[in-house]
């Protein structure tokens, strides 16, 4: 339909986004990032896009051809039909008629006075390196500040963005409207000017080199602030060893969101198909309602663990595997608590994805509704040694105990989500008790400060009693009074 759509490559491409005939925009004023020779080259090529649909402009990649690296998978076909006028002739008065009747140039007021005090010149933040790409993009989107990331794997043999990062950027592009994303030819520099969060019904094919959790974690941060409730189908790897799996996010992140007033029937993660690395083939459905403001939380007492639940899954292997895992895990956990139930989930046929594997995730729920989790998955097919299910079950149980030892009201994977939602609350004090801060959280805190000028009060708490695990950290902040700017009011 549109030339170049299929041959999108991350390495040397420019992404320009405009939904619903966003008119030509001169390049954002005050050109937030210093003129770089690369960009200068790009700019001339970037013709603003006025088509009614999303369109990626392609720049053939110089390096991409030389180096034999895995090129990005093709951009998914647009699931939306063509322009609404097209083929929809049955509806009288079909809109969007591309007639050559553009208003005469004199009537377009492209004049835009630029003074020092103009709006739209939020300072551009600059970072180096591809690490923490997700949180940077998410925070940039939420705070509306443009962002520039330089030196992305600049010194590696294989420079530039990887396929999963490109896929993530594409996902961000899908859920927003009016974002401007520019990537230089080598893919080592990314400029991102956020648009407004749009939402709606979407589909996205995630790169199988990272789990769906990689994408879902960021979506969880963004979804409550969309214009239309998000309903997205993500395809890819549901459970892997690197990212928090969909099961864990379903069990821990959703209850956390509910604490902040984001609840309702439509808050849901549904695993339609399970996909294991390396080939994936899983599919989930994530839906989330929209909120205008969030509630502040005081979440300082985790309470005592009353039950342990979990899922032991196996795909394309013997169903016995799951049972064996459950047995071994129970053996360890039963020393602490009798109320343990671990579901076995064996998926077959279409819903079992493309690769074999098994694994388990465990959650411990306290009487106050805190949920701590741990998970483990088998090595992907053809990588590493085979893992015994018994061993895996035991290790997973031990990991859960470790997590319990760390403690806190939010489990370690969701620390940053909790902190973000606290930041985005009303101008009230929120408190949450965490276990030791993970490096990811620490960096997230730094980013929160640079994007929202917010600092957390961090107090270390030592438990009065002996047998309640390690030291905890009490995080306190005053929300910034964020309100959902995308939501329409009637």
């Amino acid at each position: 339909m549109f030339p170049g759509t299929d041959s999108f490559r991350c390495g040397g491409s420019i992404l320009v986004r405009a939904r619903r005939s966003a008119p030509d925009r001169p390049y954002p004023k005050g050109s937030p990032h210093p003129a770089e020779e690369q960009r200068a080259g790009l700019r001339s090529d970037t013709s603003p896009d006025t088509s009614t649909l999303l369109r990626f402009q392609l720049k053939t990649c110089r390096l991409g051809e030389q180096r034999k690296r895995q090129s990005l998978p093709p951009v998914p076909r647009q699931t939306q039909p063509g322009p609404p006028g097209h083929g929809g002739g049955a509806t009288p008065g079909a809109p969007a008629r591309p007639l050559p009747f553009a208003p005469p140039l004199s009537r377009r007021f492209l004049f835009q006075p630029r003074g020092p005090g103009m709006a739209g010149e939020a300072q551009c933040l600059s970072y180096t390196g591809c690490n923490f790409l997700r949180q940077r993009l998410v925070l940039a989107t939420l705070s509306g500040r443009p962002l520039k990331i330089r030196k992305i794997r600049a010194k590696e043999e294989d420079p530039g963005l990887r396929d999963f990062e490109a896929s993530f950027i594409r996902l961000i592009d899908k859920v927003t409207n009016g974002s401007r994303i520019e990537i230089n030819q080598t893919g080592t520099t990314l400029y991102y000017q956020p648009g407004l969060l749009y939402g709606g019904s979407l589909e996205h094919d995630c790169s199988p080199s990272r789990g769906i959790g990689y994408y879902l974690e960021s979506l969880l941060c963004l979804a409550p602030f969309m214009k239309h409730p998000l309903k997205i189908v993500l395809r890819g790897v549901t459970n892997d060893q690197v990212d928090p799996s969909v099961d864990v996010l379903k069990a821990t992140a959703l209850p956390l969101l509910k604490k902040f007033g984001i609840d309702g029937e439509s808050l849901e993660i549904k695993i339609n198909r399970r996909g294991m690395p390396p080939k994936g083939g899983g599919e989930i459905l994530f839906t989330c309602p929209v909120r205008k403001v969030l509630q502040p939380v005081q979440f300082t007492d985790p309470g005592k663990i009353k039950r342990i639940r979990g899922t032991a899954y196996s795909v394309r292997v013997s169903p016995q595997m799951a049972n064996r895992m459950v047995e071994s895990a129970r053996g360890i956990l039963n020393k602490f608590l009798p109320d343990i139930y671990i579901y076995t989930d064996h998926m077959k046929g279409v819903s079992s994805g493309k690769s074999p594997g098994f694994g388990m995730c465990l959650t411990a729920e306290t009487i106050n509704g805190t949920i701590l989790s741990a998970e483990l998955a088998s090595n992907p097919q053809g990588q590493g040694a085979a893992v015994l299910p018994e061993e895996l079950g035991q290790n997973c149980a031990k990991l859960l105990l470790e997590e319990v030892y760390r403690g806190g009201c939010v489990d370690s994977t969701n620390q940053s989500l909790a902190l973000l939602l606290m930041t985005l609350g009303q101008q009230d004090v929120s408190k949450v008790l965490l276990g030791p801060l993970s490096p990811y959280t620490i960096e997230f805190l730094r980013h929160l400060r640079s994007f929202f000028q917010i600092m957390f009060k961090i107090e270390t708490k030592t438990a009065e009693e002996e047998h309640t695990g390690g030291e905890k950290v009490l995080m306190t902040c005053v929300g910034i009074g964020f309100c959902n700017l995308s939501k329409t009011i009637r």
Partner: protein
Amino acid sequence: MEEKEKKKHRAKHSGPKAEKKRKRYLNDLGIGEEENARKRNPKAFTVQSAVRMARTFHRTQDLKTKKHHIPVVDRTPLEPPPVVVVVVGPPKVGKSTVIKCLIKNFTRQKLVEIRGPVTIVSGKKRRLTIIECGCDINTMIDLAKVADLVLMLIDASFGFEMETFEFLNICQVHGFPKIMGVLTHLDTFKNNKQLKKTKKKLKHRFWTEVYPGAKLFYLSGMVHGEYQKQEIHNLGRFISVMKFRPLTWQTSHPYILADRMEELTNPEEVRINPKCDRKISLYGYLRGAHLKNKSQIHMPGVGDFTVSDVSFLPDPCALPEQQKKRSLNEKEKLVYAPLSGVGGIVYDKDAVYIDLGGSHAHEKEEEEVRPNHELVQSLISTHSAIDVKMASSKVSLFMDSAPLGSEDVGQEFVMPKEERQVDLKTGRVRRKAVFEDDEKENDDVASDEEDDQEEGDEEEGDEEAASEDGGDGDDENDAEEESERVLLREGIAVRRAKRLKTEMAQEEAVNELPAFADSDDDLEMSSEEEETAPEDSEMEEEEEGDIQRTCEDESSGSESEAANKTADSKQYDMDSEHIETNPQISEQSPKRKAVLTTDSGNCTAEEASESEDENSSLEEGDDEGGSHEELEAEESNRNGFQHSQAKKADSVRQTKVKTVDTEDDDVENLLREEEEYEEKIDLSADTTGALKWKEDLTQKAAEAFLRQQRSTPNLRKLVYGTAVEDEDQESEDADDELGGLFRVSRPDKASKQKANALDCSKFLVEKLQDWDLEEVMSSIRDCFVTGKWEDDKDAAKLLEEDEELYGDFEDLETGVVHKGKAAAGGEQSGSEEEEDKDENMSKQEPEEEEKKKERMDKKRKLKEMFDAEYDEGDATYFDDLKEEMHKQAQLNRAEFEDQDDETRVQYEGFRPGMYVRIEIENVPCEFVLNFDPHYPIILGGLANSEGNVGYVQLRLKKHRWYKKILKTRDPLILSLGWRRFQTIPMFYMEDHNGRHRLLKYTPQHMHCGAAFWGPITPQGTGFLAVQSVSGTTPDFRIAATGVVLDLDKSITIVKKLKLTGFPFKIFKNTCFIKGMFNSQLEVAKFEGAAIRSVSGIRGQIKKALRAPVGAFRATFEDKLLMSDIVFVRTWYPVSIPMFYNPVTSLLKPAGEKDSWSGMKTTGQLRYERGIKLKQNKDSLYKPIVREKRHFNKLHIPKALQKALPFKNKPKNLEKKGKTPKDQWRPAVIREPHEKKISALLSALSTVNNYKIKKAKAKHREQLKEHLKVKQKEDEQKFKRQKEAKKKVYRILGQREKKRQKSSLKGSSKREKST
């Protein structure tokens, strides 16, 4: 006589009182005629209709809930900022007089001229910032947004003016502050009745505008040019007790009404380019929400800026300390108005003018010390102008080199000083240019004349030559004074002579220690503490702009003042300041050292890590060179260091080497590992297989990480760096570019984390603890419900407590008292114990207290239970919500209360109520050059992404008082959020199917949609539109009002587009149509679309034809004619012009600030230039000439005819056929004789007829006559009869009378006889 005067009491016999009495009397007797109606007729009061009852119930509930406001968290700070009182009204209504009177009322001080806001303390808990609002619509809009209370002055002799209504409307749009009306000019009414009437009329009009019952004040007359004292006093009381409801916009955004402005631009830059962007600092109370440093702000009338620095200052107009007395004492009645020149100090954009009270001022000062005097003095003493500091500052490039002063660098040019003089006779202020040379003389003369204590000036020369660092107080003083450029002149007759000075670059004597003299203590306190004393002065130089030392010195100033009051006030103050500062400085250096040491102690880790950073950056440098090394490392990694986890290859190497070298706990090493912890995680994922020999390494790393987190001070540092890192970095930055020569290269912060590592949120466990071990297991034993509980939650304990609480109760029915066993025993024992305790009180006092506490606890608990049962039983949802909000508010207040402000502002931001100083860079020079304090300067904080632009959709309604309608694509000035800007809105209507259809004009009395490209503002924000902000019109200026509905980055507004075509070939119902499209592709897009002919025949587009390009086949429901026109309705998206132009009214030159004009409408332009619009001939109206249309006869098909009912069948009577000849009747032909006869007969009959007619008429006549006669007769007869009857009756009556008489007589006779 007296007795006669007394009136007797007369009981009432009628009226309500009597009625009541009677009733009571009857009731007392027990014969009250009716009972209560309800009792008497119970049926009438039963439920008639359940439905209606339900409805009434609903209605009452609705009304009740309507009264509720949604509860909001009370975020007002403990010490709120002054209330903003805006005095508004048309010109010449008495605004300034009211302000002056109010100020006089509260502070007993008379302000000569009001410029800018005036802050006063009005009570023990309230301060007011009073500001006057002119009639410029820009000012009105700006001030309505920040006002808490509006004093709306109305000239009663004139009535309401447009400004009043405009302002009211502005207020309504931007959140309605409290409004109080004040009627002035009431003394112009001579007629009392007229006055009353006017008052009433105005009051009721005012009520309709504000709300019924709104307070309206009357200021009746003037006494000596002021309003009556009592009335002003009452007004003041009303203001100071008024309560305010929080307004949404104001509480969600920080804002400052600036009361002071200073320019901080480097004068050199200004000299080089007088139009360069400026750096300014603005001062004011922070209001609304918390302000974060580096956040975005908007200055209405100027534009958007990023705050480059914020600092809080001691309150210049503080509330009195809490004391138990009713009123303020004289000292607490403060007034603060830097722009108005309170207490003789005026701030201008780049200078400070000091008003000295003439030659005998100081004598007076002895007697009455103005409370604000200290303040002023401190201000004088501390504020040495920046330029002067610049001039006096020295830089030594090398250790032993002579310090460079500004004279070494700068050029020698002499600028004239400005001096204002007050002409004694006329009172006119003149500006006199004074040059350096005369100045000295001038000075000397002045000082001589004025005071002997001005010796300093005479000594000036020597001192300048020989001033050594801060040796002599006087010296310093003079230097300082000199720098301040305050000329002292004497005005003999004038009591207050203004001594005004501008600045100028001045060469000062060479000092050994540069700028030490005017170094400032609190600056140092706030600034970085790691610097030593000499460095400190350097700091000073860097931050010369910093003028935050207004009031810290207050105390010192006052002390000194007390000591020597006789001296010349100003000079004196200088003195004292120096006396004070010197020891302070000396004190500080040891302190600082101490701090330094502790600090270093705290942040060893940090430093270490930094050093590590450098290392790593070096490594990166290496990396560039040797990629082969990296490769190698990777290889090795793959080979088997799998357990050693993720480090970047190079760092892996490094650490490895180091660990091998130093097996013991090398701190640096560990720290490095911590820093690279992330990377370890990454690889660990794919390297689960373990290698034993590396194990302890990871363990160490993990331990170190956790240890780092564990130590309390380090955790914060770990996350945010050192406590005041921001300032640090800035100063460092400044350091970096020292003199523009050297640059300190530092590793940037980002390199702390490995920039290109794997992005993963999981917090992996480095080393699993051995969960099989008992002690490890027991470490989390209590995390489970099976473990041990805390005392207050343990089930057994709780039960016991319950027993204690509720165990004893009294059965009310039986009177049996049950006692809880444990409690009773406990109490008994307790009492025993108490006795015991009495014996040895001193020993067991704490125990006693404990007991007491316990008892109190118990009581409280009981009360809580009671409350829960009886109070909260009927708690509604509303109450719960309120309670929740209240709790949150308390938490908000309590959370950071115990922290000092320095740390607190980092967590919360600057809280409302603080007096802050904000630095802003890149301000257009016009703002500074054309500064006019009469126009308010507002700094409105913007939330995240409110600084961005996008498409904004509004619901808009043209104001009903605005005369014109608004046209799409005409520029319009909107006031939205903090901003005022010009933009081009497009109006639209939303159709029932959600389509946004473009409108050409706004509808007259309806809402419509509008969309424009401009700043993103939260939904629900109100806005108003005006067409122009320049000049004044007699008409109402507010064109439209509305609210923001939606924000987006793209928009869909469509307009209708009809495409026409013409049939060129017509079959039965199918036609070929041309002229609608231009290509086959276009046709293809519209296949299936509905088309219609003008005559109303509907059809559909089928398929493109090949032959004429763009022609297509279409089918219709009927046959078309060649003369028909066919059209298709389409919707064409309209693009919105991206035009956003902030109204920069504050940048206009003084006096022209209300004349900003932006883009003009085409209509305006046409009007101005006299261009006539060329009209399209086709759009002109002309007489319509219609041909008479001839219609063919209606033809009904036979089949149809057959089906029709008879009634509707066309009745075509068949033509009669010719009658056959045989059926023809023969014609009758008369004979001549017969003809004659018939003629005669007819003649006769005619005659006869005539006769009969005549006879009839005659008869009728006769009858009439007869009737008349008869009537007459009858009348006469009736008359006669009547008379006869009369006679008869008279006779009868007489007879009767007689009879009666006789009978009466008879009876009387009888009586008599009896």
